[in-house]
Structures are given as structure tokens and as C-alpha cells.
């Protein structure tokens, strides 16, 4: 029973983490950062 609870908890944490990465970070960005690639954020207004 304890093992099933532990596995269930772990699965839940993994699911939440994956959803967080998907929604708030993005997989491409995560891979870039993990690979030590550089990042630059550029601001703009939608007007020429």
C-alpha cells in the first residue's frame, strides 16, 4: 500500500512538473538552457 502511494505521489509530481514546463517554460527553452545555450529576450510593440 505504501509503495503504491509513493509511486502515485511521484507520478503526480512528475505530471505537475511536466505541465509546468509545457505551460510556463517551454520544452525548447528548457533544452536550450540545459544545453548551456544563450538566451536573449527582445521587447517589441506591434506597430512599425
Amino acid at each position, binding site marked *: 500500500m505504501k509503495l503504491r502511494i509513493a509511486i502515485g505521489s511521484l507520478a503526480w509530481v512528475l505530471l505537475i512538473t511536466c505541465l509546468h514546463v509545457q505551460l510556463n517554460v517551454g520544452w525548447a527553452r528548457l533544452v536550450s538552457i540545459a544545453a548551456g545555450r544563450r538566451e536573449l*529576450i527582445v*521587447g517589441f510593440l506591434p506597430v512599425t
Partner: protein
Amino acid sequence: MTKNSEEGSFFRSQKFTDWPTVKEALIAKEIGGAFILAPMAMQLAADDVPIKVVHLGHRDGTAIVVRVDSGIRDFADLRGKVIAIPSRYANQNILMHRMMKTWGMDFDSMELREVPPPEHPTALREGSIDAYIVGEPFAAKAEVDGFGRVLYHTKDIWEEFISCVLVVHEDLIEGERELVAELVDGIAKSGKWLDEDLEHRMDAAEVAAELYYFQPPELLKYVLSKPVDRVKYTNLAPLEEEFDEIMNLAVEIGVLSEEIAFSEYADTSFSKPLEELDWDMDRLPPVGGAGTEETTR
């Protein structure tokens, strides 16, 4: 802007809805670079904000618009009228004063009123202003909706008009020079690609409309093709004589508090000749497969 450059660096665009917030984000280093108004970049540098202009956003792409049923036929007819400008720090403001000088008019000949760009077409339609000068797509918006008429395109009154410029933090130029070079190369390459073929522009309009501008694709297609030189994306290296002219006019009308040397706010070392730039791509992938990421604030 794609997520990853050919070299693998990660570029992310962040959309803003007003100029003061972009300025604050730059000062706070929440963003590494931004497309901002040319005179605003000069003023930030004059205020010791460590940024440098490294490239232009585009050429032209601004128009003076009046109501389609207006009796205004030339610039002299704007005397005594209310004209909306996007910002006191916009080059559109400088242009209006430059035109007043050209036409022998005093600077108080008309009322220039600061209005956020998206509100220009509505203000004209409702009659609270007589004309407006703004960057696209808000000039074309009144035309497409049938109540506005272009009095002048900037290409016809100030050749190679500069509106937005790309600025980056000086510490990025010093510490991440290759990253800035990648960004500038990418923008220059995409500009060359845009100006090569009308079909490229139509593809770009579809992508930009859905992912960045949140405007109907037809409006952006109109902007990029009616006429095709309404806005241009080549010849984007910052040139000292052009910026000096803007700076001198800005000082004359009190937009800039003091003169500032070109070398204090611009770095031209990232601009390459067009022949050295090539983008091995013909058409853009459909929206959804473009691999873009963008946030808004």
C-alpha cells in the same frame, strides 16, 4: 522571431502595449534588447542608460492619414488642425516638425496630440482628431476600413524614414557579442528575404498576424503590398548623418534635452553588407509549425 537561431541560441520576443513599459523593462534589464523609437533611444543614452542602437527595425512604414471625405489635400491644409502622434519621442513627431519647417509654418501651426497608436484610427473615425501620423498597420487600418485616406506616405516626404530601432544593453555587446551578432544577422537576413519576393511578404503576414500582431492577415498583407515599398526591410544599418538629422531636430523642438554624439548611442559594427547575408529558405512553414514563442505584458 524563431526560438532558436542556426547556432542554437534561444531568442524570445516579448510583446508590450506601451512605450514607457518597454523603457522600464530595458532599464531594469528584464529584457536584453528592444525595438524602440529612435529619439527615445537617444534620450535613454543621454540619461546614461547603457544601451546602444545596433540596427534599424525597418524603413518607412508610416503615413499621415486623413478622413476619406476630408478637404485636406496637402500639408498646408493641416494648419490649425489636431493631428495625433504616437509619442513625443517618436520620429513621427520629428517628421511633423520637419514638414512644418519645409512648408514655412510655425511649430504651433497645428496641435500635435499624443495618442496610443491603436487608438489613432478610432479617434479619426469619431472626429476627435483631423489627421494622424503613425506606423503600420494602423495607417492602413483606416484605409482598409474605408474611412481613411493616406495624405502622405513617409517614403514620399522623408526618404528612408526611420521609426523603430533595435537597441541592446551595452553589457551584452561587451560580454555576449556573438549573441548580439546572431540577432542582428537574423533580423537582417529575414529583412532581405522579405524584400526579395512578394510571396515571402504574404507568408510573413500570415505568421505575424497570428503570432505577433493579432490583427487580420489581410490587413498585414495590405501593409506589405499596397504599395510594396510602403515599408522596407533592407538598408537597415544605422547611418550617422541620418541620426544626426533626427537628433538636431529633436533638440530644436525640445524632445531631447541636449545634443548627443552618434558614437554614444550607436554601434554599427554588427551591420554587414547584404551580399554577405543569405537565408536558405524559400517559403515559411504554416502557422503552428513556425516554432515561435512570445509573451505579452
